[in-house]
């Protein structure tokens, strides 16, 4: 008898069981069968109660999931937990597998094909056989709709972006997105304009949608109402869920697919540059390979072009080989090993970097060369009179020059440099999150529109435009994301003190001020920011930002 079974059968082990459940929640859930969860779900929702046999109720009682109170069964804490994490609607039956490789393949297709960011171009690609043939068992039209919806949302969320007319990817944001559970990914894709709370509800509802089994088409509304009762979110339109293969119809019966996170253990890398496996992997293969096929087995190919994308995202050959080795049960073939090195050599033999050419006469050149604050902005100093400056910090090095007496420096000549849009907040702070960890999210264009519409204040509008303000919520406590936000906040305050900049300060209560920061002092229990006019508890500051010198006030 297993440890868990012993605990279940003994009523003296309440505390031990609770503690065990707490520590081993996942194992417990895995040990719960579909029948148990189906019965508990029915009891929780008050449906089909009369259909539960006395044997079943005894079994549930013995396991400590339910208790009889005045002729009615109620769920105990551990029963509720099962229902909340593992409900099942309908009768259990064998179902198809959910295509976990959909999002990785979508992202890989977008970047390895170097698709044009013109919507007419990429939508045509995702509607074509080139893409749909990758998933031979899927309905082409549904698949194509799912892909187009996803790419639109991923562009909006900042995971994909337009770079000089081509679709490229943000590595950090894609890693963060891919670390989400499937229901979270779908809720971001299908409901990008929701608030965090709404989206969380939607994700829960999608999770429950995955638990539908053998439902007659004309009874689906009943089940959607149950899902709404549990999550507070009503799914009205099921079509996208057919497109994404969460649900499928067969002979008038609706089933959900099953998400199977069983890790791939049979990965094989061959000397013809293909990698195949069955099962699930969270390796970022989508950033390294070109997808070939997703069926019982998922098949990728390493190509010169896919590796070029990977190198552009900052992957080095050693990292790539490590990722490949981690999924393959066979050693990396020599050809592939050497080829990756060779391609990297070709890749790194020619690089392109944007710069602003700063020229001066010989006397000034010597002075510029001696300015310590300027050094970090110089990308290259090819000759005595020529400096190639970092274009992304132009405002900063211009300020340094101004303070150093070079106040006659005119406008930069030539075509306006392509400026990448400001990184969404979620990219800056996101770290590869464990599945259930709290996560920041990408900034949505539509949300930005809403924020702009609701703000009459010029400064606030400017900050919304720049991506600095990305939510209407002013929270009571300052949020920290793995500690990074807090550090970022302190870094910004310290930089503005050093650079003598004005500081945008938004408190947890939602008040906004502009102030000149003077110092940060450490007290017994908190850090205090001293400004020209008052002091602030740093923990209570929701947002800060260094402002350009010409912004003096809120008007």
């Amino acid at each position: 008898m297993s440890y868990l079974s012993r605990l279940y059968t003994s009523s003296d082990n309440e505390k031990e069981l609770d503690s065990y459940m707490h520590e081993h929640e996942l194992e417990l859930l895995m040990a719960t069968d579909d029948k148990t969860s189906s019965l508990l779900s029915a009891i929780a929702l008050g449906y089909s109660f009369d259909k539960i046999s006395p044997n079943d109720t005894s079994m549930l009682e013995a396991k400590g999931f339910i208790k009889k109170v005045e002729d009615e069964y109620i769920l105990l804490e551990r029963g509720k937990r099962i229902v909340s994490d593992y409900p099942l609607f309908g009768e259990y039956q064998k179902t198809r597998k959910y295509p976990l490789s959909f999002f990785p393949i979508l992202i890989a297709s977008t970047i390895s094909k170097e698709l044009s960011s013109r919507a007419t171009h990429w939508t045509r690609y995702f509607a074509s056989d080139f893409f749909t043939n990758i998933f031979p068992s899927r309905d082409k039209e549904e698949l194509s709709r799912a892909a187009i919806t996803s790419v639109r949302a991923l562009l909006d969320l900042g995971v994909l972006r337009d770079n000089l007319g081509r679709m490229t990817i943000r590595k950090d944001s894609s890693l963060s997105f891919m670390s989400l559970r499937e229901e979270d990914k779908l809720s971001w894709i299908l409901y990008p304009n929701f608030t965090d709370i709404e989206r969380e509800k939607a994700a829960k509802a999608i999770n429950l949608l995955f638990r539908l089994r053998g439902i007659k088409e004309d009874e689906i509304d009943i089940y959607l109402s149950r899902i709404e009762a549990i999550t507070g979110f009503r799914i009205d339109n099921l079509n996208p869920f057919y497109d994404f293969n969460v649900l499928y119809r067969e002979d008038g019966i609706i089933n959900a697919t099953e998400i199977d996170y069983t890790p791939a253990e049979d990965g094989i890398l061959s000397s013809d540059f293909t990698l195949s496996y069955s099962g699930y992997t969270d390796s970022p293969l989508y950033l390294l390979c070109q997808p070939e096929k997703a069926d019982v087995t998922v098949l990728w190919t390493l190509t010169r072009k896919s590796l070029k994308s990977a190198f552009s995202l900052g992957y080095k050959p050693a990292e790539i080989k490590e990722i490949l080795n981690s999924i393959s049960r066979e050693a990396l073939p020599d050809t592939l090993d050497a080829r990756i090195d060779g391609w990297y050599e070709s890749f790194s033999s020619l690089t392109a970097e944007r710069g602003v050419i700063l020229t001066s006469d010989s006397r000034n050149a010597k002075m510029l060369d001696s300015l310590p604050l300027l050094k970090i902005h110089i990308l290259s100093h090819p000759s005595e009179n020529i400096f190639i400056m970092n274009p992304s910090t132009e405002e900063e090095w211009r300020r340094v020059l101004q303070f150093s007496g070079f106040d006659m420096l005119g406008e930069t000549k030539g075509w306006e440099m392509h400026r990448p849009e400001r990184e969404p907040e979620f990219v800056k702070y996101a770290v590869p999150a464990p599945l259930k960890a709290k996560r920041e999210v990408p900034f949505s264009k539509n949300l930005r529109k809403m924020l702009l519409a609701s703000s009459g204040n010029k400064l606030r509008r400017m900050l919304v435009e720049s991506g600095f303000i990305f939510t209407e919520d002013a929270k009571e406590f300052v949020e920290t994301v793995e500690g990074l936000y807090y550090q970022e906040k302190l870094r910004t305050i310290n930089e503005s003190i050093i650079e003598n900049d004005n500081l945008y300060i938004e408190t947890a209560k939602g008040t906004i001020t502009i102030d000149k920061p003077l110092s940060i002092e450490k007290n017994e229990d908190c850090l205090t920011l001293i400004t020209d006019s008052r002091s602030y508890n740093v923990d209570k500051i929701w947002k800060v930002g260094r402002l350009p010198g010409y912004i003096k006030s809120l008007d």
Partner: protein
Amino acid sequence: MENNRPLTIQSDRTMLLDVHSPYAKECREDIIAFADLIKSPEHIHTYSLSNISLWNAISSGISAEDILNRLKKWSRFDIDQKILYFIEDQARRFGDFVLEEFDEKNLILKVRRKIFFLQLEADRNLKQYLQPNDGESFLVDRMHRGTLKIALIKLGFPVEDRIKLSKGTPIKINKQDSFNSRDYQDEAVSSLMGKGELGTGFGTIVLPCGSGKTIVGILSMLRLKTRTLILCPNVASVHQWIREIKSKTDITDDMIGEYSGERKEIKPITVCTYQVLTWRPGKDEDYPHFSIFRDGGWGLIIYDEVHMLPAPVFRITAELQAIHRIGLTATLVREDGREDEVFSLVGPKRYDTPWAELAERGFIAKAYCHEIRIPLPEEDEVKYALASKREKFRIASCNKNKIAIAEKLIENHSDDQILIIGQYLEQLDEFKKHFGYEIITGTTSNKKRDELYSAFREKRIKVLIVSKVANFAIDLPDASVAIQVSGTFGSRQEEAQRLGRILRPKARDSHFYSVITEYTEEEDFATNRQKFLSEQGYNYSIEKRFV
């Protein structure tokens, strides 16, 4: 066996065979009859189910039920319903169209359902081949038998061809006592000939270079004992075939003839070149030598290096559906994408075996492939930068530093017989000037070629420079090193054929060097060239050399 089942069947009808499974061999033997081998790298071999592969299997007597049982026996996962349906559906279709004897001039095509009859009658492209007979059948001119079958297959209609192959004029041919064939060569012949039943006696055999494809041809001749026409890509191969036939059988000089630019002999066994057959006096005139096909009383035609079959021979082959036919090749990769036509006209792939398997058993040499990268000489850099794409490839290919690398490689392989293979004649001339080795190109006379081949075989010369004329069927049993200094852009088939020059089994391992110029167009093309061999499980080591 539950967890060791070696086969994964995908919805797109590809099947992945895990070759490390203890049941891999057994499974392969079961599926090869109805699936085509697509690629065979070192760990996973890919097979494909197609309507043609299924129809061929069914026509040779395997039932749909048998196919399904074999798949269920070996499949690791549940098989998609679509696959099961596909197999049953294709099996049902077989027999909808039956071709039978009618009279001396015509055959009769019987159609099982009225709707098909109407469909064929209304098809504009088919009108020229079909003469409506009685509302359920058509008469078909014997000459159009092959062409019609291809046209119907393209429409998704398999034809059950119930016309027996002609036996041809019998000849006396027996094997020499000293000649013993290998098991895979016997298997190849058996899978093609079957037991002589309908639906057998024609097809394509795919075997690696150096593994004895000629022997498969000879075994077929021994089995059928009929007048045989053998078509080859060049005169060197013609001579090779004649030599092999004479050494393995009791055929005497008066029984075997050469039909080439040099000689025009028609004998019970005639070996000729594609070139002489497709010669014609003017662009719009007939091919005068085609009469050889019709008037020879042949019972067997062998197409050597069938992937090189020229277009006019495609056409005439369509008329020869009543004769036993064998296509032999190592690489059925046609850069023009006409592989399907080869299968349709000559016959389906009946036998294919992974190269690595034969290397492991010692039937072909173990070969190591190396890609050697060298820089472009400084003085060529500007010229390269300004050149057109095609010209860039030529400049990179003819990198003069390749001579120094070849010199070093020749020095390292002092005990080997070495071939230097290239594409550009001026480059090969440079090599000849530098080293003083003999060279064979398209303009070298056949007599001179034979002399040089003999000298090379007898090790009187150690290094031979060859242009693309040596890509096919030259018999160089002792070459163990090939240095490829340039090639035809990204041709996968050429790379495989060139490797094939050193695959004949021998006491030592073989080495294939491909010398390329780094950071140039040649690098990309080299990667593409290596694709076929990579899919056969060959690994290229990449070495950088400084000159």
